[in-house]
């Protein structure tokens, strides 16, 4: 026979049959109990690693952002503090100046009032003194006039006496 086939390349039905059965069984058993759990686990682990890396990156970014925010806050706080201090200083200065001004004006007013009062009292005193002097002069004159006929020395002594009394007053 010209086209006799080598038994090596002639498939046996027995092995084909058993191989088909065995392969199908192997495939389904492995798929259910090996490949699915293995692939699922590997995928989950890879997913987990990816997630963890992403989370770490995110956390890092958040940390950086927080740091930036903190720094910004700090800077702002510092600025605010400076402003507050400046304002407080200004306020204090102003208050002191105001107080000074007020005190000064008050002092001036008091001084002015005092001067005025002194002046008034001085005037009043002067007027009083004038009135007293006038009264005394009148009284002295009256007494002098009443005692005019007595001696002259006595008169002069008396006048001096009166004058002395006035002086003492």
């Amino acid at each position: 026979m010209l086209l006799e086939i080598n038994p090596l390349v002639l498939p046996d039905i027995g092995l084909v049959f058993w191989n088909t059965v065995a392969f199908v069984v192997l495939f389904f058993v492995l798929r259910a109990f090996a490949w699915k759990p293995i692939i699922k686990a590997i995928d989950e682990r890879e997913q987990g690693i990816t997630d963890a890396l992403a989370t770490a990156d995110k956390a890092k970014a958040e940390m950086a952002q927080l740091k930036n925010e903190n720094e910004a806050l700090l800077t702002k706080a510092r600025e605010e503090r400076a402003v507050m201090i400046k304002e407080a200083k200004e306020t204090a200065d102003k208050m002191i100046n105001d107080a000074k001004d007020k005190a000064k004006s008050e002092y001036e007013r008091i001084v002015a009032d005092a001067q005025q009062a002194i002046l008034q009292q001085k005037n009043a005193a002067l007027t009083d003194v004038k009135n007293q002097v006038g009264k005394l002069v009148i009284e002295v004159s009256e007494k002098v006039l009443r005692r005019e006929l007595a001696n002259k020395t006595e008169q002069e002594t008396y006048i001096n006496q009166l004058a002395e009394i006035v002086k003492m007053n």
Partner: protein
Amino acid sequence: MFSTPIFAPNFETGMVFRNIKRLLVAVLCTFLFTFSNIAIAQHEGEMHADSTTKEAAEGDFNVTETILEHIKDDHSWHLWGHTSIALPVILYSDKGLEVFSSEHLVNEHHEPVVYTGNYSYKLFEGKIKVANADGTLNEESSKNVWDFSITKNVASLFVSIFIILLIFLTVGAAYKKRGVTSAPKGLQSFMEPIVLFVRDEVAKPNIGHKYARYMPFLLTIFFLILTNNFLGLIPFFPGGANVSGNIAFTMTLAVFVFVIVNLNANKSYWEHIFWMPGMHWSMKVFLAPIELIGVFTKPISLMIRLFANITAGHILVLSLICLIFIFKTVFASVIAVPFAVFIGLIELLVAFLQAYIFTMLSAMYIGMATEEHHHEDAHH
């Protein structure tokens, strides 16, 4: 066209070139196969005639027979010396199903004898056939008998499946038990890189984003071929069988690939086969039969590649060992054994490589069949 990046810049010429190449390969294969078969058959016939006369004359050692005996399937599993395990014979004929031990088919000198069941069975070149009353082959009745025996290859296949199940059910359980947060340990950490290799180097680049659906199939064929390749390299029990170098085994796997590829193929795949877009109608008519042949040559190439590579490796190792018996001197082993060890090491590589290539090409065929084409984008 990400599955064929080489042709991507010049899609049309690439396609034509590929088709012509495919046609050439198909034609060459057919020729080679037809002629090589005739040649081998004739050669064997001559050898047979030679050897029988020689053996009768001086009890000479027949290399071809010895090697083929090691490569071929058997109804008993040879352990050592004259000890072998008798395997169950399962026959289905028009007279019904029958099961008996293969030890009834040989006498104490391991010569075939007639066993009378529903028919008179006898081993002819290691295969169970129906014998006539005078012990000669009855081809007419032999056609009625279907041999579903647990042969050496079937038994070895079961051993390999047992090993695979043992390994991967353990590993699968380890993932379930240990959870995803802890690092893999022991066998689990040994198998995980291989599983990842199949996923990242085989499935993902060839299939694309739909790879997950095909992962169980690809992993199963990868580890089945790999385990059987390794078992085939072990020269004694429980290895010693030549499962992955058996055409029935590779054919079955190739048929599975063929079925999966064509069941999952999308509209665009069939359009590219029967009515190639972007071509003149005459070219379309010309290409359709070529592409149709391609549908079948793809799994056939898978079948032949694995079978031929593993068988060739076995023949090479056995030939080198046979040198000792040809020269009939133990000193031949000085050359033969190191060479056999060297080839054995290469076979280890080939065992992995062929499992990888079979899986990768399967993934590629699946990828080609499920690929979404964007012609407008490719052309402009």
